[in-house]
């Protein structure tokens, strides 16, 4: 065993994940503003340039933005494997990634090929740097365990989702490259199930027992679920590809594999909710409710997908919103309310704890973001989510109300983050 590789305390500086976290609500706010400018027309067609822009502001600008920042923090703790030179690597990724998202969404919204070309270039560099550094760290890690395995699969899925995304974006950007629109389904599946869901499952393995003191996940589930998801997704992709390119009729087989994926994830969700209900820690907080809302939305999204596949209804918007906002954003939002106060406390404690006169000034997690504040944002989040779902059915009446409530919601989240940073700085200044 290589002992030097053991990097038990190589957590990055507080600014490394925080830069990603702070930027995420800004992109979400931009998405809400674009909805306000464009109104109900965004729901006319999922291929509309503006709709593509809004989708990517949420998925890349918020969801993946926070997940990337979190991975810098998680790898040393969970896998004993830090990313190489996290400060510099994260700055490179952040620079190219934010520029890439801005160019991509503006490029979509304005139908501007040059911006899309720059976007492809920036996002390719950002993702390649991130994927290569995370993959190296995970390969070097000598830690085994369900979470690290799950994390590895989610990174592998992100390789695939990114490659397909770059291919699709290149089709938009260059006339000479064909737009392979039939790859969109694969791109979404690898991003939504392979990357986001698998990562959230891997995190759940650690944090559900950790935050709520629940029993551990059943061994059979945590050993096999993420492997199963990855390989079924791979089989499904192959079938979808052959169905299309060779015009073969494996349709029933690919539907079967998609339904199996849904069933496996629903099993995970039901077990998780049961564990949470039977938790030993009686106190409930905003993070717990965010998790519950997210998990319930995940079940609804999957059931809607199954329903739509069987009946042939087009529920793309509803499924997309329930999945990306109702599920992924809810859980990420809830996690931020644990991660941010904990990191503020941790870094202050490391620096000030052994100066007896300054120890009493270190804020507790609740001083950083009080439970009252996080519960208030939770209520706003639920209202905004319900209004958005109403807006799909009655866009004219609800779209502005929904967008304004998201504006308030993400504005509040951003405010809570900024207040945390200011508190952190003021504690430093007064040392």
């Amino acid at each position, binding site marked *: *065993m290589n*002992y030097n590789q*053991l990097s*038990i*305390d190589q957590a990055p500086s507080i600014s490394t994940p925080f830069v990603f976290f702070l930027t995420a609500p800004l992109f979400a706010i931009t998405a809400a503003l674009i909805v306000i400018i464009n109104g109900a027309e965004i729901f006319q067609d999922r291929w509309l340039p503006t709709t593509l822009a809004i989708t990517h502001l949420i998925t890349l600008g918020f969801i993946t933005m926070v997940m990337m920042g979190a991975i810098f923090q998680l790898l040393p*703790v*969970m*896998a*004993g494997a830090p990313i190489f030179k996290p400060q510099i690597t994260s700055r490179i990724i952040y620079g190219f990634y934010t520029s890439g998202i801005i160019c991509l969404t503006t490029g979509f919204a304005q139908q501007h090929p040059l911006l899309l070309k720059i976007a492809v270039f920036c996002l390719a560099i950002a993702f390649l740097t991130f994927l290569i550094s995370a993959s190296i760290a995970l390969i070097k890690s000598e*830690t085994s*365990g369900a979470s*690290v395995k799950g994390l590895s699969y989610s990174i592998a899925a992100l390789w695939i989702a990114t490659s397909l995304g770059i291919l699709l974006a290149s089709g938009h950007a260059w006339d000479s490259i064909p737009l392979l629109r039939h790859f969109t389904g694969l791109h979404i599946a690898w991003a939504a199930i392979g990357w986001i869901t698998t990562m959230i499952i891997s995190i759940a393995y*650690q944090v559900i027992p*950790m*935050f709520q*003191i629940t029993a551990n996940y059943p061994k059979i589930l945590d050993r096999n679920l993420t492997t199963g998801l990855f390989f079924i997704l791979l089989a499904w992709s192959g079938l979808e590809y052959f169905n299309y390119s060779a015009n073969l009729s494996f349709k029933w087989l690919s539907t079967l594999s998609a339904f199996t994926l849904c069933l496996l994830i629903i099993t995970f969700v039901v077990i998780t909710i049961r564990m949470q209900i039977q938790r*030993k*820690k*009686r*106190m409930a*907080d905003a993070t717990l409710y965010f998790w519950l809302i997210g998990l319930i939305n995940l079940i609804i999204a999957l059931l809607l997908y199954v329903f739509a596949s069987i009946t042939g209804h087009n529920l793309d918007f509803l499924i997309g919103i329930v999945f990306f906002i109702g599920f992924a954003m809810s859980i990420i939002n809830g996690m931020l309310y*644990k991660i941010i106060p*904990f990191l503020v*406390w*941790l870094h202050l*404690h490391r620096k000030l*704890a*052994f100066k007896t006169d300054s*120890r009493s000034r270190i804020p*507790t*997690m*609740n*001083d950083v973001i009080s439970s009252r504040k996080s519960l208030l944002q939770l209520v706003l989040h639920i209202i905004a989510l319900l209004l958005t779902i109403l807006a799909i059915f009655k866009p004219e009446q609800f779209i502005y109300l929904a967008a304004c409530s998201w504006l308030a919601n993400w504005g509040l989240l951003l405010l809570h983050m900024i207040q945390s940073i200011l508190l952190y700085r003021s504690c430093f200044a007064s040392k």
Partner: protein
Amino acid sequence: MISIKQLMSEDHAHCDELFIEAENLVLKKNWSETEIALNNFINTTLEHFDHEENTLFPAFEQQTGMTSGPTEVMRHEHEQMRALMKDLSQTIKEQNKDRYLSISETLLIFMRQHNMKEEQVLYPMIEQSCSQNATELMKDFVSKDTSSAA
């Protein structure tokens, strides 16, 4: 054969149980019972730290020659948790429920991520480098456990 990782991880879970017992009592503002439960948690956790700092870590350091590596970080984290446990005791004296819950939340996350690092990284390393004398190293800890269970 005795597994250091398994025994120490089980003790982590035991400490978690005691920790949550105290926290659930605070919710009822039952201060006298909370104090007993909290002391029970603190004493068990301190014994766990002692066994690591005085037996397991020195054995590992001797075997590998690594004195400033992971064990130093773990010792440092133990100090941080000792400080938080002291703060918790203080809030019981003040009967300050909100402050207790706020500190206990911080301690819980800190403790669990510390345990995770030990269970996933450090214990397997100790087990590998000290496989010859695992039984000897865990002798006192196991006997303590059975005597307290009796």
